[in-house]
């Protein structure tokens, strides 16, 4: 009956293992897959990422010179960052914050 007693007493007198999340944010691991973004300056709008994306979350229009990703469709698998010939799609380990409305992340190259 008292097998768990040792663990209980050890827990009671040791500091709680909780990471006080909102005050102490743990900085994310360096190659974690957080969310996808593009530095539009050297994107050539070839559309390979659009074809390779398993969730069809990327829309590229050559004439409108726009690259657009829907973070609510994206499954963060990083295939686009690997297949992009110009290596201009970047994956940041920071996860995307929740929002009230779904938004689309659109980049246009002037």
């Amino acid at each position, binding site marked *: 009956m008292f097998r768990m007693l040792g663990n209980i007493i050890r827990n009671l007198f040791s500091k709680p*293992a909780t990471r*006080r999340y909102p005050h102490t944010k743990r900085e994310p691991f360096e190659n974690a897959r957080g969310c996808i973004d593009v530095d539009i300056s050297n994107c050539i709008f070839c559309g390979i990422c659009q074809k390779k994306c398993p*969730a069809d979350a990327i829309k590229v229009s050559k004439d409108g010179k726009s690259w657009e990703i829907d*973070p*609510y469709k*994206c499954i963060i698998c990083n295939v686009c960052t690997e297949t992009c010939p110009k290596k201009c799609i970047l994956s940041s380990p920071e996860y995307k914050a*929740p*929002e009230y409305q*779904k938004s689309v992340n659109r980049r246009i190259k002037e």
Partner: protein
Amino acid sequence: MGIINKSRVKSPWVVHFDCGSCNACDIEILACLTPIYDVERFGIVNVGNPKHADVLVVSGAVNNRNKRVLKNVYDQMPDPKAVVAIGACAATGGVFRECYNVLEGVDKVIPVDVYVPGCCPKPEAIIDGIIKAVEKMNQRVDSEKKEKKE
């Protein structure tokens, strides 16, 4: 009354319903209860009963069979309530969007307050989502009270 509003923010009871999720999001929601994240600090308790709950946490893309169950669970919850859609599947159907049995996202069935992106989102993001949903629920109740006063 100030105290009821203040206490509504401080004790959001959560009921979790998985409609068609690959249960990666479900175990992340359960991971929020564990010692490392411990949502009980914010008063969040995972009650299994929609009648006692304020926040409905939904994960997974709704399919044709559980859309009725989802509607039923949503209607059973007493008012002021909020809905949090966890993960890409709940927001837009995610990777299963073109499947024949999947309705794309929870907002096709019930009104959703907060969308948490990610496949699967980290427990920190889920905690943010629930807290944001409760704040939005509180503002909605305050604005309704003001209209009743005029």
